[in-house]
């Protein structure tokens, strides 16, 4: 396999803290939450970098801070040399024309057709990819005239990846890439993602599926309660801890981190 990774840092995250302030009243009151605690990492050009962790570990918050959907409370983030927290229209446009973003939950207007959604996205970017080709790659070309509401959950998920690829991004953010896909579709999507990496695309993947991360990612960061507790290649981390697969390693990290805390078997603090 051709290795397209380079030492050029495409994403840098330095000492990022994200705090959600306390809010609400009465029974809707919620305490202050520290979602990210002094997080630092770098992603190099051509990598598929995976972020794994339990529910509420801060994976999506970190990914959203990198895309500018959220702003961090302190620390700095740079994506392709740009600051995603810069809200000026020209900066947002410049960054978002070079990044593709697949959100964890993607909703579409019910009555829109597949091709109309793609055509709309095509109109939003400076150098859009031909969407028919992308639909074909993700097995949706035959569904292009269907209303989005009539697609299955897995097909909607694939459509959200197609939309993220329309800008022909240098950096692709994928949040829970294959949720809702059957095993055959998952493998087909993985192959497309691998081919994108081989074409030089940098990909940041947030996932709960350890087999997916093990198969796709060149490096990973393990997150636990807003902190990165391990970072490296999947093989080096597994070797270091004598784990036979990434799932074992993940469970080991979670158990280790939970030793001093009152955490139940579902990963919730009690």
């Amino acid at each position, binding site marked *: 396999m051709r290795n397209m990774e380079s030492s050029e840092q495409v994403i840098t995250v330095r000492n990022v803290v994200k705090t959600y302030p306390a809010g609400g009243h009465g029974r809707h009151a919620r305490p202050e939450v520290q979602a990210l605690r002094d997080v630092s990492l770098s992603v190099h050009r051509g990598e598929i970098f995976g972020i794994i962790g339990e529910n509420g570990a801060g994976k999506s918050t970190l990914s959203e801070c990198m895309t500018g959907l959220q702003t961090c409370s302190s620390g700095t983030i740079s994506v392709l040399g740009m600051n995603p927290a810069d809200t000026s229209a020209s900066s947002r446009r410049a960054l978002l024309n070079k990044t593709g*973003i697949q*959100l964890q939950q993607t*909703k579409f207007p019910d009555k829109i057709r597949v091709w109309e959604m793609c055509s*709309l996205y095509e109109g*939003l970017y400076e150098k859009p990819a031909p969407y028919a080709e992308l639909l074909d790659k993700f097995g949706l070309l035959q569904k292009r005239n269907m209303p989005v509401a009539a697609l299955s959950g897995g097909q909607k998920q694939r459509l959200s990846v197609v939309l993220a690829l329309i800008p022909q991004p240098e950096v692709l953010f994928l949040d829970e890439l294959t949720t809702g896909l059957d095993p055959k579709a998952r493998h087909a999507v993985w192959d497309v993602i691998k081919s994108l990496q081989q074409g030089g695309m940098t990909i940041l993947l947030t996932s709960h599926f350890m087999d997916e991360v093990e198969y796709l990612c060149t490096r990973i960061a393990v997150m636990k309660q807003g902190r990165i507790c391990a970072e490296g290649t999947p093989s080096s981390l597994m070797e270091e801890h004598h784990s036979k697969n990434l799932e074992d390693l993940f469970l080991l990290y979670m158990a280790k981190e939970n030793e001093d805390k009152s955490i139940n078997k579902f990963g919730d603090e009690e």
Partner: protein
Amino acid sequence: MRNNNAFKALFSTELKLIIRDGNIIIFGIIIPVAVMFVIGLLVSKEELTASYAGVAGIAVLATGFMGIPATLAQYRHDGILRQFKATPLNPFMLLVVDTILEVVFVLVSCALVSCAAYFVFHVHVVSPVRFIFIYLFNIFVIYSMGNFIGALVPDIQTCNSVSTLLYFPSLILSGTTIPFAMLPRALRITAEIFPMTHANLLLADAALGITGPYDIIRFSVLAAVAVICYAVSVKVFRW
């Protein structure tokens, strides 16, 4: 150039969605034209001139109280505004495009109602320029209230309840479907609490070419309501 393409892409997509949804066609175009014919057959020509102004306002009411707040609340609920934040498109453009489309439908509705009034029932608007100005002013006022509701409501259910509470009483009591003069005195007094009543009375005076004693006050109060509603909407708006 790219902004232009984005606007065009968004405009054509939203237009298709609005037409497929069908509500604006039924409540904004078919019902006003049908009401115009019904009232035209029931009342005298003099009364019809004043009633025509109210009927022309049905589309403003439908889009302002039902269309705009529901679109805002639905887009927020579905996370569609947030999703557009992940693209180079400013989500604010989505709201601008939707508002432009609602206004286009309202103007089409007004044109059709006016054609029916003029060609079928021979209604003549005495002050057409003033009528057009007040009509556009009414759109500005009622849409400010729609934006106000859309910005404040926590969810789509609350939005529907608040919109319904404003829409149907306004539709019945504000001189849009039932001529204001035909209402019993008690109901006319009750109707005065609805901004649409004052908007319709201003429009009726423009159609008849008269200036009522309270027109300036009505105009000033409606303008103040609009300014306050837009200011609050911008202040509390959430994507």
